[in-house]
């Protein structure tokens, strides 16, 4: 089937199976490799994309449900977005596999809560796991991005 959505600002039409998850479609059809499979059950956040501004686990989000939505992945940020800049300046990553999901979740969260406490950041990132364990610096990066 054909699905139509806006990806990183560009109106796009993709071919997908009706029972496919958005993760597969973004990677295969659009080569958006920042969206990554890990748990497959919506726990870890490595496959996070923003769907109409909300962080969504694309590994459990059926692709046809994205019809007409606006999807943002890290490829759609400038590379110099304040959250990206803060992650780089604070060295808030090791292997980098979970980083795009962290950045998108943090971006969405900071729009709702522009001056969060450490505790609020920890809760907001509860659905984004980092096995390298970079949380101390990730929290610092989110605070820095909040300060601008």
């Amino acid at each position: 089937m054909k699905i139509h959505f806006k990806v990183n600002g560009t109106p796009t039409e993709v071919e997908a199976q009706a029972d496919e998850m958005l993760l597969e479609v973004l990677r295969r059809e659009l080569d958006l490799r920042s969206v990554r499979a890990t748990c497959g059950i919506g726990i870890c956040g490595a496959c996070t994309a923003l769907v109409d501004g909300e962080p969504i686990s694309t590994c459990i989000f059926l692709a046809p449900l994205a019809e007409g939505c606006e999807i943002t992945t890290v490829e759609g940020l400038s590379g110099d977005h304040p959250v990206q800049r803060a992650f780089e300046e604070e060295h808030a990553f090791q292997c980098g596999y979970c980083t795009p999901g962290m950045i998108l979740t943090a971006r969405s969260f900071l729009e709702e809560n522009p001056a969060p406490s450490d505790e609020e950041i920890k809760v907001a990132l509860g659905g984004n796991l980092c096995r390298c364990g970079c949380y101390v610096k990730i929290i610092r990066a989110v605070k820095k991005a909040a300060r601008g």
Partner: protein
Amino acid sequence: MSNPRVTGAIRYAQDVEFEGMLHASILRSPYPHARILRVDASAVPDSVVVLTPDDIGDFGSYGCQIQDQTVLPRERVRFVGDPVVAVAAPTKREADEALNLIDVEYERLPGVFDAVEAVAEGAPLVHEHHAISENDAAYFGIRPQEGTNICHRFRIRHGDMEEGFKQADVVVEETYRTPGAQHAAMEPHASVARWQDGRLEIWTGTQTLFNLRMDLAGIFNIPESQIRIISPPMGGAFGAKTFVRTEAIAACLAQKAGRPVKVVLSRYEEWLTLNRHPATLQVKLGARADGTLVAKRVVCWVDTGAYADCGPGVAQKMGYAAVGPYRIPQVWVDSLCVYTNLPPNGAFRGYGAMQAVWASERTMDVLAAKLGMDPLELRLKNVLVDGDQFCTGEIMHDVHFIECLHAAAGTIGWADNKQGKGLCVLMKGMQTPSRASIVVEANDDGGYTVHCATAEMGQGAWYSIRLMAAELLGVELEKVHYAEPDTDLAPYDTRTTSSRSTYMMGRALVEAVRDLKRKGELGYGECVNKGGLDPDTGQGIASTHWHQGAAAAEVRVDEETGKFQVLKLYTSIYAGHVVNRPGAELQNEGSMIMGLGTTLFEEIAFEDGQPANANLSDYNLPAAGDLPESFTSDLFEREGAEVHGLGETALPPVPPAIGNALYSLGIHVTDLPLSAEKVLNAIDSRQQAKGGRT
């Protein structure tokens, strides 16, 4: 902004694509131990390439330390998840669907799921014979015990243990258990294989390019020069991406298909591929009334699962790590690497040290209590200092345990109040013997390219090596390019494990830059560390270079429910000289957080050999919210000191520091993880010992 991790531009092995590439799926055994009677894949459509046990007749067996594995098992499956049939199809979906069309008939056999039971008389044998591998990962004397499930027995015989215990005024004895754990790197195992004019090329996230190439050469019976391994950056590894994992199946399928084949494991399959060794350790420790240690006896049962992998090495390291960084005149250790019908266990951040340090450092506090002594004082009285002899006979140098311990004690206000507080000291060896080599090439544009096999798994090794190279060459960092590790271009390296790369490759780099300055275009350098232990006496050089640290924890326990909070967690690690400060902090903090998961909740549950929590919902990983209120660490440096690896040093001391903090409240838990249930049971035992609980 250029960092590809932040822009999402980084490409892992799972992102490698080729025209006409097929995708693989694997049919795995549903039984922990069974004979394969019949495999019927006749219903699979022709568009799908099928690899069955009948196809692997000509292939050699492999195994990095014991040669106990074939690409697919020929007659018997030995664990739930043992691959039986592999398929490759144009899409992953077609490959998965083909698995449903394959019929395998099994005859079930009795299994064994615990290392202590597996060494008992009459236990089912997982393997009939134990052939020692020719891979250079079998770098020490391996002592399989034929006719048993023991694939390696490592012993330390230092002094006279019986005589030692006669001199002891106080003796404590305890048994400790640590469960299996999953590395759970965010990126699953992934590889892409293709054959080009009889040459095998594999892109795979691997920490062990050359060991992998050796095993593949044995499987296909071709020279190593006919195999090329390329290791893109990994999305975490922690020991899981070592030796042969998905590569042999990918290569066999690619050969049969005549096209490139990609294997990417599902999350569930990660639990069937490699885990951390469950272990049981029995520790007996004796001291004089003044706290002087006189004798120690340790038995380790190290469960390596259905295939040895590097289990013999893990058992060996666990054996000497369980002695601890202490002067003990009489030491006796038996460490047994034991087959069971569980998925294979292998290298896991710490490599046996975590299990050993848990048992050893918990015992120190039990002994201190029995002596009526301060646990810090007991440690300080016995801990190794420069010039002391370790139980292996080697003389210790560059030793920093005392300063690490003092820093740890200071952080939790040990001198003021010891309630709810715990300490731990740690000594961990580095791969010995080993060899690192590196080439530095001067480019026409004034830049330099570094070629070596040090793999990048998030630890920042490529960046650290570039930093060191830029400094040695006297150029800007941007001038130094690091080539993706490729066995066609990089010289030999033992492997990217045991926190050895910055130290070993860093030393090789000094030689290479010196050589380059002499020759102008190309410089080569290598670093060799010699040593090793006699497996029957444990005498020799365990490590040419020791990783050292201490940890401190403070807890608050809810005595009604057994739930407890870690209020404070701290580690002090001796770093010598830090090359990349943020990278070193990240490695240290990451080790502590992984240690926290091990302490509090990580445990693979098996029911009759079936993994019962093999997903990230039932098996929890630490999240941001699990950080203790106070979570800090120190990396100690000394003017002119050597680089000390620190990729895993801070993991093993975390569980005992927290366990000892509970013990300071009379809560004695011997088995990890420290679940509320176990803590509550320990509270009950304490109450009963005091004369009954109401």
